[in-house]
């Protein structure tokens, strides 16, 4: 990894002073708690913390042998892939449309970016009502076409679709902004040259635009996954709280639920440790991305 290629200033202590504030905050509020989680994951603690037993790896054993954990792994995969690709595809289409030379383009762009400003828990409230089994408009429209009762209080698949759509919706603006930024960087001459060569718009998209956008796409895939995995707590908490049953219980939500509702800190910490391992894998992925970004 070449982090050093443009170091131009020579100073022995200044760089340390510069990174100090961030490093201190990181150590105190990230690494120390993370280390605590590691320690807690080997313990069994009563809710009020008055009884503590060392149980070795038993929390992990129980975790990996439990059906519920396996369910939440599957949920997480479905949810993460769903959010990542729904967001990516919808925002790519929207950004391509908004990148055309048409009148009123600034207005369209503005409207497309709006949902990005909406906090997931607030978006959750709005979508909860849209899909409300008794009052919601979506259920109402569905009742014309099918007998299927669109009730996410009862139907796990509907609940999953709902949290995926809501999470994707609030994240659209982020992806659209990056796509628009990326599209701006594509030299017009390239597209025009392709046109002259007789490429159809679709061919231009496939052979010119998408390859040139690929670093942005890759970056967004990673960022969307991180978002879906770690930042959608507010959506799930505002709408389904993991239910019905365990239908929308993701790894993060389960860690929260077991730690907070069930007050089983040992198991919850073990789950946090698993998530941290996942986090490290993602960090590694991002480093890989950085390399690609640099070569581009």
């Amino acid at each position: 990894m070449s982090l050093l290629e443009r170091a131009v200033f020579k100073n022995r202590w200044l760089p340390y002073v510069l990174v100090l504030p961030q490093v201190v905050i990181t150590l105190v509020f990230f690494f120390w708690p993370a280390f605590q989680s590691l320690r807690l994951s080997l313990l069994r603690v009563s809710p009020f913390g008055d009884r503590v037993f060392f149980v070795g790896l038993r929390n992990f054993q129980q975790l990996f042998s439990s059906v519920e954990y396996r369910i939440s792994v599957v949920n997480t995969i479905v949810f993460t892939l769903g959010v990542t690709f729904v967001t990516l595809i919808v925002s790519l289409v929207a950004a391509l449309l908004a990148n055309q030379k048409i009148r009123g383009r600034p207005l369209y762009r503005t409207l497309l970016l709006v949902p990005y400003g909406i906090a997931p828990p607030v978006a959750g409230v709005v979508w909860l009502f849209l899909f409300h089994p008794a009052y919601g408009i979506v259920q109402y429209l569905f009742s014309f076409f099918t007998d299927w009762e669109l009730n996410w209080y009862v139907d796990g698949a509907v609940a999953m679709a709902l949290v995926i759509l809501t999470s994707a919706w609030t994240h659209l603006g982020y992806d659209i902004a990056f796509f628009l930024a990326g599209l701006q960087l594509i030299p017009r001459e390239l597209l025009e040259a392709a046109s002259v060569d007789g490429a159809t718009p679709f061919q231009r998209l496939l052979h010119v635009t998408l390859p040139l956008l690929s670093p942005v796409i890759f970056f967004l895939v990673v960022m969307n996954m991180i978002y879906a995995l770690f930042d959608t707590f507010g959506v799930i908490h505002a709408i389904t709280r993991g239910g019905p049953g365990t239908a929308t219980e993701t790894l993060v939500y389960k860690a929260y639920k077991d730690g907070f509702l069930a007050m089983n800190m040992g198991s919850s910490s073990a789950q946090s440790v698993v998530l941290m391992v996942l986090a490290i894998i993602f960090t590694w992925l991002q480093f890989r991305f950085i390399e690609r970004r640099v070569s581009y």
Partner: protein
Amino acid sequence: MKSLAELAPAGRDKAAARVSRRVVARKIARDQIAAHLGMIAAVAVISFPLYYAFVISTQSMDQAISRPPLLLPSVHAVSNYVQAWVRADMGRLLLNSLVVAGATAAGKIVLSLLSAFAIVYFDFRLKGLVFWMIFVTLMLPVPIRIVPTYQVISDLGWLNTYTGLTVPLIASATGTFLLRQFFRTVPAELAEAAQLDGAGPMRFFWSILLPNSVTNLAALFVVLFISGWNEYLWPLMITTSAEMRVVVVGIQNLLPNTGTDLPEWNVVMAGAMMALLPPVLVVLGLQRWFVQGLLGPEK
């Protein structure tokens, strides 16, 4: 569909040229209409939930829960917004959210500027370690480390304070990451020239690097302000008094309790509209820089 270039005037004959010009004009018009239709469809799909929330926020309770649903605004907006404002103590909530989101965004930018500057422009022994440390935090979100972090805040006596609400959140990997990318696109000659002029690193930082990254900082501000505004679990846990609540938490109190409250979704939506307005204004106000500053150098 043929491309424009192919249809461009190629005929020697004037009449043919005129015909083809008309074809081009018609083609352009058709493309424009198609583009507008596509755009309108996309905007409609994406903005519908927001529109619906707005519409509901102007209706009476009976209208809001009526079947079939009403898709047009009604006249009860004022009373709904007043109710939501009073019931949720919206003024206080919005103020807290503004302070928290503003302070975390500003803090994150300052810290990220310093560390990104160090990482890009200096060579020091622990650079690799520092870099990795900062980046891994991206994936240690609040829900998975909340209990131990809560303990730290409590030991520091920061529960229920703006300090507690902001400081633990101001180490931002996103900020450092994006700024590092920006800095690397600033031409190396600038720094070399500064050195030749005898300017120290901080002088270079202040008078060359910062002015050159204004757009990027604006973009970053949007991203960080939004993420600060969106923070939910952290404020929920560490604030115990209603005066310290932020709006995304406070708004949940408007949700009707099943069994005991009326289904006053009109008031809920009025609250939601107020809660989403400030960050949306930030996005819109800074949108030009937001899109430009996200990737690559300034133009």
